[in-house]
């Protein structure tokens, strides 16, 4: 269920972590940021948070599977914008307000990745970011609610734990994200059906302890591809996850 895209992602190579099918950005002679910028088609990628940049790759992989026109974009993660905001503040102090790049400002908001990716996904119903420790579960609940109340036909959820700033990635941190597509109608590809108690099926807990753990469980669930008979329940089309190790 991991879509490896073509020429824009020539930098991708089979990962060396021993986990099959997970692409990994190669450490090239160019800086990591340049590598990500080249991999994503995001305009002004350099000024966006990492979540937006790697999320765009996931959106590109999954958007063709969305068949409806009522679309929503949701993101879940902790502070993917925080480092951008901090960097913006430091530049403000060092150079003053007149030397600020206005392109950076919208990416200091917690909703930045959601609206950036929402534009890519043509999400004309909403683009919302969920935050807090239970953000993944909250986002999945909201996605199912949007589908169940016929507000949308497709919801693309991007989960990211890329806490590192785009301009100052921490070499010791792992940046990763997963995009999953939920739809009102079953998908043609093999997919995982979301059961009504999906929230509790996330590692069998009723309360989330961390986004990192939920991300791991979500990845595990997305890995299990099943062929289900067509039903009205929402289904996850699949995920696109990759690691960036500096």
């Amino acid at each position: 269920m991991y879509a490896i895209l073509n020429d824009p992602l020539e930098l991708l190579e089979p990962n060396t972590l021993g986990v099959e099918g997970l692409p990994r950005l190669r450490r090239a002679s160019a800086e990591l940021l340049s590598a990500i910028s080249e991999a994503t088609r995001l305009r002004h990628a350099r000024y966006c948070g990492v979540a937006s940049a790697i999320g765009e790759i996931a959106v590109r992989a999954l958007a063709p599977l969305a068949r409806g026109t009522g679309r929503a974009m949701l993101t879940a993660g902790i502070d993917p914008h925080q480092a951008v905001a901090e960097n913006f503040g430091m530049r403000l102090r060092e150079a003053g307000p007149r030397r600020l790049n206005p392109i950076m400002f919208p990416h200091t908001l917690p909703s930045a990745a959601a609206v950036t990716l929402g534009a890519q996904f043509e999400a004309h119903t909403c683009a919302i970011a969920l935050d807090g420790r239970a953000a993944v579960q909250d986002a999945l609940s909201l996605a199912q609610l949007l589908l169940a109340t016929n507000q949308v036909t497709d919801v693309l959820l991007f989960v990211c734990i890329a806490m590192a700033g785009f301009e100052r990635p921490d070499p010791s941190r792992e940046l990763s994200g997963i995009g999953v597509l939920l739809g009102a109608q079953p998908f043609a590809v093999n997919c995982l059906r979301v059961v009504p108690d999906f929230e509790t099926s996330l590692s069998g807990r009723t309360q989330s302890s961390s986004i990192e753990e939920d991300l791991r469980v979500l990845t595990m669930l997305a890995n299990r591809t099943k062929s289900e008979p067509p039903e009205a329940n929402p289904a996850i089309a699949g995920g696109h996850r990759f690691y960036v190790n500096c």
Partner: protein
Amino acid sequence: MPDRPHKLSITAIGAISPAGSTWAETWAGLLAGDVRSVAADRVPLAVPAAAPAAMVANLDRTTDQYGRGPAARLLRGAVLQISGALDGHRVLAATNHGDADNQLAFALNGESPCGRIQDVAFPEFGTIWLASACTGGLHLLWLASMEAKDRHGPWLLVAGDALSAIGIAGFQAAGATGPRTPQPFRETSGGMLVAEGAVALELRKDCTGDVPSLLAVSASCDAGHATHPDPSGLWLERCIRNALRDASCKPNDILAIVAHGTGTQLNDTAEARAIAAVFSGEDPVVTSLKGTIGHIMSAAGLLNVAVAAEIWRTGRIPPCVGEGPILSGLKLADGETMVAPAGKILALASGFGGNNVAVVVG
């Protein structure tokens, strides 16, 4: 077509704003129409403010022992005004930059580490946090209205932000602020006034009696530019039309509109076009609160709904301050305006990234 929402009523309002430290004070200040702008050099922030702003009076901007900064205080202060103990309330919250200024102060100077607002604002109960820029508060409303299908509530919605150097400088860098106080929907308006504040609403299902209710909540998204709205106002227009449809009312049923009206030409032109397109030939009174107390960010939409509820109760509409030619021929509230109480009122909000939300209160 979306399912029709279950009826939720607004049973309590709390607010802290540049107009006052309670909802009653805020409402009185909005009716008076006194502009609350403060010069940039009087705004105490981690980095000197780049433009004027509207401040909450006497707001403690330090970080306390729990890691709470002024934004967390605003949120808690608004919630505390909701009468009665929280009894099984489902708590939904929204913020933009939150306590970014205190976090910046820590990053720059090592002053008092400020916690993430999602962790420290309401540690005593579970809270769903979302962010969608200036539509955050109304997306909470939308979420509650969808949840009402299967949940009994009650709900407590709260949104708020404190002033931050990043926010003020960012809006200035984006060309959104101006040298004068904002004059929403005027051709000569030069920009918005950044402000701070928090609003809390209590919603209950199946209320009887004389209370304002949410007849419809509709959402759309331009899905275009990161900051600029769709200049045609198309997606906002669709959002308004869907809200009217879901509320089973025609344009001429709407007596008043509490618009987003930031005072920037980009927002106001697009919003005026959308309103004019939907209400062509009708004459609802249009007002914006942002000429008086500025733009309180994530709480702006909830403030508009709170005002819509008061208009429903009293028939009194706060003025839309400003002078000069009016965009798209809108009928603006010139001074305090009266309409018949218990009518249908439309509240709007739009945000960075193109999110729009329309609410019909009646």
